[in-house]
């Protein structure tokens, strides 16, 4: 998988200072630090993404809509946890 590293990213305000500190320690620019972290993150999840992609291809090839729905629902629990975590500010 080729990943272009040219996208402008928004960094949380609170992260600016630690980001600059890490960049200084590593002798790199802040953008390089962010993109390295993103690449690492993507690599970490590469197997999960590839598995979902492959399972979706198989379900589509077989016309197995039940299986395709299961693949689509693979993130439901994760999304539900994220949704509930937002309640802290309510």
């Amino acid at each position, binding site marked *: 998988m080729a990943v*272009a590293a040219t996208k402008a990213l928004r960094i949380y305000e609170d992260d600016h200072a630690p980001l600059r500190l890490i960049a200084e320690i590593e002798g790199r620019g802040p953008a390089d630090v962010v993109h390295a972290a993103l690449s690492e993150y993507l690599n970490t999840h590469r197997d999960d993404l590839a598995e979902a992609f492959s399972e979706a291809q198989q379900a589509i090839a077989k016309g197995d809509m039940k299986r395709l729905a299961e*693949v*689509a629902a693979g993130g439901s629990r994760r999304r539900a946890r994220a949704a509930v975590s937002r*309640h802290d500010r*309510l």
Partner: protein
Amino acid sequence: MSDGQDVDRNELAATERCIRRDLDLPPESVAQKPSEQAERHALLRVFYERRAASPIGQETIEGLQANIVAYSLHAGRWRGLTWHEQEMSIVWLLAGRYHRSGEQDDSYPHFRRLSKQQLLPNEADYERVFDREARAFAESVVKDVRAMSQEAGERPGEIVSGRVSGRVAVRAVGQGADLQVAVKMQLYPGTQQVPAEWLMIVLAAFFPDASFEDLIWSHQLAGARVASDEYAFSLPS
């Protein structure tokens, strides 16, 4: 495939606590489809009818233990408490009570007595809605992607755009045998991100014979930079 102008609609759901505790319905009713739930209780029927037409009501209810804008819903002597969670594009029926004006077990004191945790949807409530969304997404994704692919093939060099399953905004352009696809990472309606699994399904439908490792992720479509929340995908020529 849709242009998205007429398909933005909210999901509607009642929380398990509301269904079981407030409306006193059996456990199996929690997982039922809205159309089946609507037959079980007048408040649910009115909720699904009215909040489908408008996600908010006219009368807000103050003094709740959660900082939300919630509306009263009337169904005969029953009162409901609904919340339009705009970020998630879900309208919830959070609570219901038979209305006995002035009495201690009246609906409004009941709504105000509920703790934030009791009032708001829990993980299982959200998961049921997201599973339902996933089934709806899976039902039309392939048809929508095939229509876009065909259109892009018939108009080479021209960018065609649409919403897959009404939820994911996609632009595609065909260049000879090659296809480039840009996917916006905002899930419509609402402000959520497209779930990773849904993105993979859209890509699998556009590139049914590709290996995941061969996909090229970029930020350009037909030579132009895509929006900051879009990713472009293609295969090596």
